[in-house]
Every structure is written in C-alpha cells, then in structure tokens.
C-alpha cells in the first residue's frame, strides 16, 4: 500500500510568479486525492503558495496535460499544472 502520492506540480503565468517557483515535486498524503485537496495542501506550503491560491475561483488546472476540475482525482505520478484562465490568440 502506498500511503503517499508523488506529484509534479507546475505553475504558469502569475501563479508561477506568486508561488515563486515554476515546477516542484511533492509527496502528499494519500488523503490528498483530488485537485481541490491538493490546492489546500499546496497553499499551506509558503506565503507565496498561499498568495498564488488566494482566490481558487480564478485558478485553472490540468492533470497530465488535460484540463481538470477541482473534483478531478489524482494518482501518484501525475503532472498537475495550475494557471490563470488562458489568454492566447
């Protein structure tokens, strides 16, 4: 039984600037099994992280390069990216 998830977390645009990091590898308790739970867990890591996630309503997420919801499940090995609403084109 694995009781932790190993995740790669990426930050883009102003989330990257606020978190102060572009990419980190984290090991989270198995109970952190959804995107929403990961946000709560990450926000407690540093004042920068707290600032990045201060308004979860404007944070978007992708799991393994696919758009995900707060309720999307996480598995060990996932790449989880956080970013603001996209503004390309």
């Amino acid at each position: 039984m694995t009781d932790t998830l190993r995740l790669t977390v990426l930050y883009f645009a102003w989330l990257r600037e606020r978190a102060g990091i572009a990419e980190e590898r984290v090991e989270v308790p198995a109970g952190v099994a959804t995107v929403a739970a990961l946000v709560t867990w990450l926000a407690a890591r540093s004042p920068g992280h707290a600032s990045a996630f201060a308004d979860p309503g404007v944070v978007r997420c992708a799991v393994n390069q696919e758009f995900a919801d707060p309720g999307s499940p996480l598995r060990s090995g996932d790449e989880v990216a956080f970013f603001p609403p996209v503004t390309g084109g």
Partner: protein
Amino acid sequence: MARILVQTQDFDTGAELARMTAGRRDVGGIGCFVGTVRDTAAGRKIAALNLEHYPAMTERALARIVEAAERRWTLLDCTVIHRVGRLEPGANIVLVLAASAHRQAALEATAFLIDWLKTKAPFWKKEEFLAGGEAWVAARESDEAAAARW
C-alpha cells in the same frame, strides 16, 4: 493532417497558404485569421507582449481544438501556428487557416478555431507597458461567450 506549430519565430502567411493548397484542386475556399500585437491595451501604450505557454500541453490542446473543428465541418486541411516569447506591436501572434470545398465551412471553422484557441489552449499574455511596468492580461468574458456560441 492538420499543421500545428508553436514557435518563437515569425510565420509567413502566404507561404502557409501556398503550402496548404499546393497541388490541390478540391479546395473551394480558405478562411484565414491573423492575430497581431496592437500597440494599445485599455488605453495604455504597449512596448511588447510576452507570451508564455505550457509546452507539454499546448500542441495537444491545439490538436483537440482542430479535431473539434473537423467534427463540425468538412475540412480539407487546417493550420494553426501560435508564437510565444516577446512580441512587439505589429508582430504576428497567431495564424489560423481552414480549407474546405465550401466557403461557409472554411469561414465558420476559422472563427471557431480562433474562438476556441482563445479559451482552451494554454497560452498566457503579459503586457509590457511603454511607460514601464507590466501586467498579465485578464481573460475576457466576451472571449468565453464567443467560444460558447459554437
């Protein structure tokens, strides 16, 4: 079949059009959209846009958008090229081409592709102001509405 590129260098719209239609005799119309950097945003003068993206995801997201267009319209070919990096006013940002036997399909697919790209592809723009300072561009509700109409 679609040509999807994310690159720092400029693109040549004429060459992309020629590439798409070379040797073809079944194309009736090609829709095209070229997005360029304006020197003004919300009344402030812009020195440049800095375009960031999520490399591992971008081309996949663009391919999904093209697939969605191909499900909705009978297209003969599509091209989507998006630039990243620092782009000054007047520079090209994005090119969309859609070729079809019929003009309505080509034009509608072109509008669809740029509307969806604006809301479903992982690009972010930061404005560098001529007077100093910079700011991330906020997503616009009008872009969400444009994407939702399809």
